[in-house]
Each structure stands twice: as C-alpha cells, then as structure tokens.
C-alpha cells in the first residue's frame, strides 16, 4: 500500500486543496469592494500541487515561493490570520502590512518569504539548502516556481549549483503554460522543462499537476531521495490557472487565452475530481465533506474578521524594518 492510499493522507490532501479554494474564492468575492489594495495572483486550479507537495513536508522544512504564493503558504500550515491581514495592509499582517499579497512570510511554518521577481526564489531556496547542508540539519528546502522562471538565468544557475553541491532542494515547477500572457510555446524550445533538470544530473518526475495523489506520490519519492542525502530532486507538474495572471477575473474574454483551452482544464478541476474520487472510494461521506467545508469556511471567515479589526500601520512604521 502506498502512502497516498491511506485515508488520513487523502483527507489531508482534500482539506488542503479545499482550504486554498475557499480562501481564493473569498478573495474573488470581496475584491470588487476595492478595500483589498494589493495585486492578487490567484492559485485557483493549481491546488493539487501545493497540497501534494506540502503534505510531504515537515514544519521545519523551508518553503520559498513566488508572487502566486497563497496556496503554498496555506498548504505549508502558515498562519491564516497573518495572510488575510497582510492582504489588507494591516499591522496584524504576516509582514506587518509591508509586503502585501506578493510577499508573505511565516518563519514558524518555514515560509521564508516570497519573491515577485521571476526566478528570484530559485536562488534563495537553493541558498537555504546550502545553509542546511553547512549546518548538517535534518530538513529540506522546497522551491515553488512557474514555467516562466525556467526562462531565467537563476533557474540554470540554481539547478547547477544544487546538483554540484548535492543540496537538499526540492524544485517544484508549476507549469501552467503561461508567463503572464506569453504562452510556453512562444518561450521554450523544448517543452519538457524537467529534461533540463536531468541535464544537470538531477532526477526528475513529471506527475499530473491536477491530480493530488500523483503529485503526492512523486513528492514522497522526491522527499525521501533528498532526506537520504542524495541531493536535489525536480518535479514538473503541469496545470492551469483559471484566473488571469493577476486579479480576480478570468482573462480569456480579453483574448489572452482561448476559451476552449480553459474549458478543457475546468473539467479537470483538481478539487472536484478529488472529492469525487474520495466519495466514490468511501474515503469520505457527503456529510463529512460538508463538515470539512464548513470548518474551513468558518476558519477563513474568522481570519477575515481578524484582518478587518487589525489597525493600519502608523506613520512610524514607514521607516522601521529597513535596517536591522
């Protein structure tokens, strides 16, 4: 029996995906009020990757992420109040209102910050792994990035160095086929990004990024490889973002993407298909599912209440935290 067959793991994967979905949909619903003044890069449609990978991570493992970070932050178990208050620019925010949606942090949960410069976190996460190795610690560094980051120099530089020094890094490429609105076909001579990892001598897998079980299984093998001291591992998870590059709306109506392409991926909804799979296999009952959803919704609503009550930063905050 593989790990993903265990009921507890499957319920956790569903819980993490549902949490991300409910959270992101809440943003979509409140965003038109325009009091959440931060550019949001929503993760809806990609939930299986954050859930499948983070279910294999421990509290002490590091996570580095990008502008599209909400899913990773939530799946890693970071503080929910902190993220919502951050989106509203409040002092109770995880970055005290100085980072916004693109710059979340929760060091207790191993979330060491997120970069909105494409490819930036690849180098940072690799450096975290260097620190782990130098100190002989028992943890790993997971880096989430998109297919756009594979275009950047830091991608090649980080993969080479991680392989050269056998660093404990899990590279997770979320290939949603678009960098802003530029399709992968306009950017990559070879669409199989994982082949580049293999060229650096890094073992790689290419699980279905919309199947939480497939991602979980691949990440489980990857994490075991890394924890055994064998160096980095690379996952390419193909998926699709339902919303535009930024903001709560879809972008096919602007001509950014073909509607038929979106429709095809909507049918492959990672949350819906996983719910159905669990219901069918008896992993969860309708009633349990409703309870799970209700608990998550309550948690999310409570975080919104916290954020609304949290004060805005005062003038003194402008110039604090520039330097230690």
């Amino acid at each position: 029996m593989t790990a993903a067959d265990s009921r507890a793991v499957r319920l956790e994967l569903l819980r993490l995906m549902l949490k991300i979905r409910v959270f992101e949909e809440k943003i979509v619903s409140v965003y038109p009020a325009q009091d959440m003044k931060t550019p949001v890069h929503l993760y809806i449609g990609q939930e299986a990757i954050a859930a499948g990978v983070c279910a294999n991570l421990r509290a002490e493992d590091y996570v580095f992420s990008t502008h599209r970070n909400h899913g990773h932050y939530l799946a890693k178990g970071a503080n929910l109040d902190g993220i919502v208050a951050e989106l509203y620019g409040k002092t109770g925010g995880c970055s005290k209102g100085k980072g916004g949606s693109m710059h979340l942090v929760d060091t207790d949960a191993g979330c060491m910050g997120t970069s909105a410069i494409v490819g930036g976190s690849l180098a940072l996460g690799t450096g975290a792994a260097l620190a782990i190795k130098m100190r002989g610690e028992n943890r790993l560094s997971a880096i989430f990035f998109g297919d756009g980051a594979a275009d950047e120099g830091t991608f090649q530089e980080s993969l080479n160095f991680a392989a050269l020094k056998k660093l404990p890094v899990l590279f997770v490429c979320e290939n949603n086929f678009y960098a802003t609105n530029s399709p992968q076909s306009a950017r990559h001579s070879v669409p199989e990004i994982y082949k580049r990892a293999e060229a650096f001598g890094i073992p790689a897998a290419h699980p279905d990024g919309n199947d939480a079980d497939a991602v979980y299984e691949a990440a489980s093998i990857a994490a075991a490889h890394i924890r055994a001291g064998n160096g980095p591992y690379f996952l390419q998870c193909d998926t699709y973002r339902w919303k535009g590059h930024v903001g709560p709306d879809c972008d096919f109506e602007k001509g950014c993407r073909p509607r038929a392409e979106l429709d095809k991926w909507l049918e492959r909804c990672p949350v819906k298909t996983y719910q159905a799979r669990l219901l069918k296999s008896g992993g969860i009952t309708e009633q349990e599912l409703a309870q799970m959803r209700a608990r998550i919704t309550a948690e999310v609503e409570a975080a919104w209440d916290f954020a609304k009550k949290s004060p805005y930063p005062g003038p003194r905050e402008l110039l604090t935290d520039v330097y230690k």
Partner: protein
Amino acid sequence: MPWTKVPIDKSEFENTLGKEGLRGRSYRQALLEAQTQLLESDPSVFVIGEGVDDAGGVFGSTLGLAQKFGKERVLDIPIAENGLTGIAVGAAICGMRPVFVHMRMDFLPMCMDQLVNHAAKWRYMTGGRLNVPLVARSIAGRGWGSAAQHSQALHGLFNHIPGLKIALPATPYDAKGLLISAVRDGNPVLFCEHRWLYDFTGYVPEEMYTVPLGQAVTRRKGGDVTIIALSLMVYEAVKAASALEAEGIDAEVIDPRTLVPLDEAALLESVKKTGRVIIADTGVKTGGASAEIAAVIAEKGFEFLKAPALRVGSPDSPVPASPELEKLYYPGANEIAKAARALCGKK
C-alpha cells in the same frame, strides 16, 4: 591616534608608528586577518566567490583560507554572479553570514537583481521578520589599461537603494575593523575596496576589533577648507593638504568610511567650522556619492557655506584604456589642491 593615521607609504609607517613598536600590516593582510578571525570565531561565517581558494587568493586577501578552514567554508563557485549572490542571500536569510568576494566591482552589476530586489528588501518586505546578513566584498581596479569593465568604482550606484549599507575602507585599520563590523551587522553590506590600497601599510592590532559603521574619522585637522574624501581619495586628500599647508591653506580631511550610514553630523560639523567643502570620490561625479554628499550639505549646512561645494571625481565617460587618457580620467591631489585654492580665493 594611531588608528586614524594615514601613512602615505610603507616607509612613512616604518619611520613613525612602526618605530613606536606598533604593529604594521598591509590592507590585504588586514582583510585576510579579519576573515581568518571571523571564520575562527563564528561558525555561521563562510567565504564564497570566484577563485577565493586559488593560488592568487583574490590579490592575497583570501590566501590560505581554504587550506585552513576547508573548501566547505571557503567556496569556489561557478561563474554565475547573480544566481550565486541569490544563493548567498538565501543562506543569509536562514542565519548564515556569507562574505561574497568579487575580484572586480564591475561584476556587481551582474548581481543587481539579487542585491537590489532581494537582499536590500527582504527585511522590509517581511516586516522585519527576516534579515540578510550578507557582505559583498568587491574591488575597484585602476590603471594598466584595465579599461571600462575592470576599473569601475560603482558604490554611488548602490547609494540609491535603501536597505543596503556601503563601506569604503581607506586604511588597513579600517579594512579589518569595518569588515568585522559588516559581517556582524546583520544587514546586507557592500564592502567597497580599492586595488591600489592593497599595498598600503598602517597600524593593525592583532586582536579582533570593530570600526562602527556610520562613524566618520578626521584624518587631518584644519580650519580653512573641509575635504571629504572616500577610499583612495583619502590619501590624495592628505597629500593635497600637505601641499596646501605650504601655501598657507589649512585643510581638514574627513573620511566618512561608510556611505550608508553616512555620518552627516561629523561632515556638517567640519563644514560649519571651515565654511568651505570639497568632496573627493573615486567614482564619477554625476549622480554619485559626491553628488549625494554635496546635496546633504546644501540641504542641511547651506548657512555654513562661504562658497559653493566643489566635487572632485571622474568625468562622465567609461574608463579609458590608454595611459595618457587614464591620466586625464583620474583626478588626484593636484585637482583637490586646485579646488581648495579656488575656494580659498588663492590661485
């Protein structure tokens, strides 16, 4: 004080401080000693950069460190300045204290994204929850036709980026003391050295000591004109002051030692006393360190000025290769003295 003295050459040191039994070391030896003691005393410190473990040892400043501390803590790296800077930043975020070494300051623009977008901002963007205790050493070159891509003094470029600190040690004493401070500081610090300073000798105590970031030092006291000089220009300013003394002009030489933080109070106090100021920098004038210091004085010390602030720096051109053009490109003691005479109304 022996630690503020600027011996113009080795023989001056030997005939003065050396005779008093004070310990003399070159700038490169001071850097090497600082890194040795940092590596010995703090397991989170490591040295990383292209060729840091090679036979040259970055002009001698890292010589033997790899043999002493191992290649795990003194790392040679791929020629990938931006990615590796990001890797150093990532290690720093997780509590290490990397000292990144660039043989030429011209390689810093390769790391612009990681220095400017990441190192400088990580603390602020995370609401102060994470720090980047990274030191980036780099060396400005000069002469022998090193030309436009191997001779730049780019510290002024980074002066525009809040979140970075910038140190420019002129003496061996400061090279050691400022480097130890920079590594312990907890913020990203650009440590800007000058290749021509490497052979200068001065007083360097053997024990670990610190020179605080943000504290200027008076290299020479005077009442007629203030010369604020950075890096190699400190020596040119001291030479100029000696020449001016014979002409009856009493120049004060102030070395800020760090551009960020800038010891504005010390600079303004001197300008208040003399009423005249020259800012001498190793970089180009436009938009650079000298421009910023002049602006600070204009904003906060205008009423002290008896004459306009003057800048001595390089012209707005890439660094030329020909020795004859190099002579025109680099100002020195003569140009500083000329500016002082103009300010003091003497030809």
